[in-house]
């Protein structure tokens, strides 16, 4: 028996004979790809949310600058109705721009 397994090649053959290869179980690759696609989807959603947040932050900064500049340029005690109207308009435009951009980002997912 010692001589039988002293030969490395024979040992290899015997090991292979004792441990036959199996094919991948049916459906395993499908399950793997389903998991992978789910993770890819989640990764893109996270990126989209981050892009929307950055865009919203940028818009907010611009809006703030516009409103502050406007407030410094006019007399709020006498012209407050006009100031209010313009502010509402600026905020509305910013919100519209943000939601349009968000819809575009989400549509591309």
């Amino acid at each position: 028996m010692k001589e039988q397994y002293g030969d490395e090649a024979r040992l290899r053959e015997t090991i292979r004979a004792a441990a036959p290869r199996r094919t991948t179980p049916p459906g395993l690759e499908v399950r793997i790809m389903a998991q992978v696609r789910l993770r890819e989807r989640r990764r893109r959603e996270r990126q989209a949310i981050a892009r929307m947040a950055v865009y919203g932050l940028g818009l907010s900064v611009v809006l703030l600058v516009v409103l502050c500049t406007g407030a410094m340029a006019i007399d709020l005690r006498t012209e407050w109705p006009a100031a209010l109207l313009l502010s509402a308009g600026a905020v509305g435009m910013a919100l519209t721009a943000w939601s349009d951009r968000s819809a575009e980002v989400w549509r591309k997912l």
Partner: protein
Amino acid sequence: MELVQRVAAGDTEAFGLVVERYSEPLYNLALRIVRDPALAEDVVQETFVRAYEHLDGFRGASSLSTWLYRIACNRALGECRRRRGMRLDERTKSLAGEADAPRYDDETVMRMRRALERLAPEERALVTLFYEEERPVAEIARIVGQTENNVKVKLHRIRRRIRQHMEE
């Protein structure tokens, strides 16, 4: 590397090619280590998912297959460590029951199977990588995270143990 770049860019279809190419060898490696078909499936699934999530960390220092084998080997050995002490059930004992070994008698095959079953999970991993996958020692060392000398010494010990078990 082109395939890796495509996958890193979010091309899941490219990753499908990777899965198709490596699912069977990784399944067989996991099966040899954990000796449970259902658990081997879980190991392979987790291996590919983890590989997909960490592909940006793959620098190309080793081949993609070496990297995948390393993940699978680590996961399978981790499962074995978690299940250490649990008795093998009949399903895992009969794992290789459907062998087709025309050149060897049943007695030889059964002796070898029993010898392989008595090996530790880490040893079964080395046997699979060296004798079944025919990987070079250098690559096996990268897969299992040890030096080449360590791997050679362990393979030598494993051969000796297998021969001892076969002669019992």
